[in-house]
């Protein structure tokens, strides 16, 4: 095996834990940032042989990576392998001209900015610190520092969000002209503080908000963005051989590639095994401090399981999925049914295997269609 070409690095620290968040995050702890980065780098050294010599993408996610104490952050970024795409997630309130410059200096060439909304009352509901202008300022700081590949995260389906709120958010996002947009419907995950506070309200709004996904897709594709993944949009290149502005790192997940993840709670999938690091900071730092691997949970991924995952992930994309390896994963009756309903297109050819792709309506129902198609 030539090794994974995609690296994920988890920086869990945040100034505040938003009510809806269910990621592995830690509030504050600035005195531990340095120690954690040491541990990260130790894990990376331990697993270096799992990575290919040429790494294609690095993604630093969180948490709020840009909340990490700047010296520690710089030390981490400078030690990461070179890659064609190097993304860092940032929260608007942390993006100063200084931080933008730091990222630029450390070879980061893509920033994913957690805007979420431009409506003050919705930002408040989400417990976001940033104000609409904070988001805009952060965006321009990044542009000024020379970033030409910026992604904005938006959340829709927020309790109290009206159709015109959604329009206003999309207008505001488009006005900034980001290269990339990720638009997620708010998930009220069981057990979160947010669900406790807003779950009932969300359930009541569910019918009214059912159209929001379609609105998002129509507005963004209408503005020239490519709906390349269920929740992701990128500017289509203006020239035939212009840059591919899809998130190359995330594309690797959706294409079923191997990846190494380091940090607490990070997941790796390599050579038919998936493992998840302990989500707890102390045992993670302690293990790596003594040269050991952190506590992990392992999950074997037999071929059949990988085939199912390739189907699930591949159908999120706008490119046809080749059925060669994953044909056993597909329920043939369901495929015929979905085709009859105009939700799936199947291209059969004798030379190469069959390709399947969801139709636009099929993509709006992608979760249900995929569940049907799974054998």
């Amino acid at each position, binding site marked *: 095996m030539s090794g994974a070409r995609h690296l*994920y690095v988890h920086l869990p620290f945040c100034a505040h834990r938003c009510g809806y968040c269910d*990621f592995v995050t830690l509030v504050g702890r600035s005195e531990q940032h340095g120690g954690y980065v040491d541990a990260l780098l130790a894990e990376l050294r331990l697993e270096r042989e799992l990575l290919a010599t040429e790494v294609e993408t690095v993604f630093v996610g969180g948490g709020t990576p840009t909340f990490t104490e700047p010296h520690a952050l710089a030390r981490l970024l400078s030690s990461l392998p070179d890659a064609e795409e190097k993304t860092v997630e940032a929260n608007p309130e942390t993006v100063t001209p200084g931080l933008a410059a730091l990222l630029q200096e450390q070879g980061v060439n893509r920033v994913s900015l957690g805007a979420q909304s431009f409506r003050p009352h919705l930002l408040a509901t989400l417990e976001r610190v940033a104000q609409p202008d904070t988001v805009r300022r952060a965006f321009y700081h990044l542009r000024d520092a020379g970033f030409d590949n910026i992604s904005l995260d938006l959340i829709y389906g927020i309790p109290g969000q009206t159709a015109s709120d959604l329009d206003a958010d999309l207008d505001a996002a488009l006005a900034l002209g980001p290269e990339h947009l*990720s638009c*997620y*419907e*708010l*998930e009220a995950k069981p057990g979160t503080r947010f669900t406790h506070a807003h779950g009932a309200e969300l359930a009541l709004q569910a019918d009214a908000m*059912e*159209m929001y*996904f*379609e609105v998002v897709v129509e507005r963004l594709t209408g503005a020239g963005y490519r709906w390349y993944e*269920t*929740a992701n949009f990128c500017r289509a290149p203006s020239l035939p051989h212009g840059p591919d502005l899809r998130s190359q790192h*995330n594309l690797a*997940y*959706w294409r079923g590639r191997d*990846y190494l*993840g380091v940090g607490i*709670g*990070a*997941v790796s*999938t390599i050579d038919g095994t*998936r493992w998840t690091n302990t989500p707890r900071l102390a045992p993670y730092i302690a293990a790596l401090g003594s040269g050991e691997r952190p506590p992990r949970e392992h*999950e074997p991924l037999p071929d059949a*399981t990988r085939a*199912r*995952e390739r189907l*699930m*992930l591949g159908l*999120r994309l706008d490119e046809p999925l080749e059925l060669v390896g994953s044909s056993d994963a597909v329920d043939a009756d369901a495929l015929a*049914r979905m085709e009859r*309903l105009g*939700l799936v297109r199947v291209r059969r050819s004798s030379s190469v295997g069959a390709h399947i792709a969801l139709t636009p309506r099929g*993509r*709006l*129902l*992608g*979760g*249900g*269609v*995929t*569940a*049907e198609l*799974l054998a």
Partner: protein
Amino acid sequence: MPQDRIRNFSIIAHIDHGKSTLADRILELTHAVSQREMRDQVLDTMDLERERGITIKAQAVRVNWKGYQLNLIDTPGHVDFTYEVSRSLQACEGALLVVDAAQGTQAQTLANAYLAIENDLEIVPVVNKIDLPQADPSAAAAELADLIGDTPEHVLRISAKTGEGVEDVLDAIIGRVHAPAGDQVAPARALIFDSSYDQYRGVVAFVRVVDGTFSQREPLRAMAQGTRFEAEELGFFSPTMRSSGSLSAGEVGYVITGLKDVSKLRVGDTLTSERRSATEPLPGYKDVKPMVFAGLFPTDSDDYPELRDALERLKLNDAALFYEPETSQALGFGFRCGFLGLLHMEIVRERLEREFDLDLLVTAPNVAYRVQPPNGEWHEVHTPSDMPAEVEEVEEPYIKASIIVPKEYVGAVMELNNERRGRFDHLEYLSEDRVHLTYELPLAEIVLDYYDQLKSRTRGYASFDYDVIGFRPGKLVRVDILVGGEPVDALSLVLHRDSAYERGRALVERLREEIPRQMFDVPIQAAIGSRVIARETVKAKRKDVLAKCYGGDISRKRKLLERQKAGKKRMKQVGMVEVPQEAFLAVLNLSGERK
């Protein structure tokens, strides 16, 4: 025992009016059992009988009192078994009619009293529970005397609980009830008034010998059904099984037949000897037919074989239970079962769930219909979906309902009966406050929730009994429910033309709420033939996606979809539409709940 020293009687009473307490007290008083043995022997008969390797409940107990042989014959306790009750009564010459001193006459008291009168029994009226503080023995005695055309002074007043007056009851049986009148030397005849099944000994018949004598090892024949067998053992219960070698005219006892099929020996049939056969059977044998039908489906289709075995075993002890395999595209494999009535259905369902640990889905019950298709023969239909779309004529079973209520609820009962296509028959004051109403109603109108409605509209005061009185023509139509254009067999209904539209619409609305949205619009229709009478649409989903999916949660999202797929596999498929079983359940329940 000379025939003139024998007395055969039963106790008839409304539920909870003290029948079994009185029976226990009689056994105790006649020393059939000692007081200490009461608990061990009588109440716990199951254990005792198990020791003997036989699991038959005594249906008739023989006791001695002042030189007389008294046979106490048990009667089945509820409305669906009127025929069985009438056979038990036919085995007696007298009956104790027991009424609770606090509650007075109830519908079941009446029904059974009339049955006893029809069978020419000497009725010994008894007011029980006179020890209760709220007892009004005089009022109850007056009502009871009025009912049977006797004088209040003639009514015995007792407390089965304390034993007060029970000796008088035994004396009254000897003094007032006639001795059996059979011919000792005529060819042997015996009435089968009950039967039971034991896994080692086969069918055990409970009989009342009318003429002649039956002996052990004698070849016997059931006259109506023609079943032949040898009497393996004859005897009586006192209160445990005692073999006696023979049974003679006037006596009551059991016959162990060795037959392996309970339906070969039906209640009401006449036993005679093969060697010297009687020419005329005893009167009154009826082949009892089920009137109420419902589909029984295991909620887990893997339990089908268990359900089949359980029904087979129940049938051994319940000749009236009818079942045949039924396949529903909505509910899978199950059985269409026929019952004598609602209570019978409830008992069977409860036994299946409790004794056999089965989880059942029971479709809304329907009645038997007699149908004549154009240019076709009359035949019976037991499943609404079997009702031909075009019929010349349809007949449905009618009942005579007997209802007793405090007078302030008469209006409410009349209103209910009018809603249910009832025809008023008779109204009579039993006392100043209590009224006896009789109505003729289609059986179909009571099989769903009639009894619950009656109870709730009379605050629980009404008592109810009924008798099937035959088939009558009705303006009945089959209403089909179509989901996504496909008829759902389990939801077809036979309804009166006047209520078809309303009921069809209610069903369709309920289904719209219950069927989850699909990837396409799903029309739900109610139709009579090709005419749609109600329509709703389950709108297609506009969106069904997992918001995000990255390296950290691929496993979780995959498992989520796999679970979703597994859930889909459990759904019932109606054409292209996936319907959760719960939806059918909700709708089937609804058909019982009228607004």
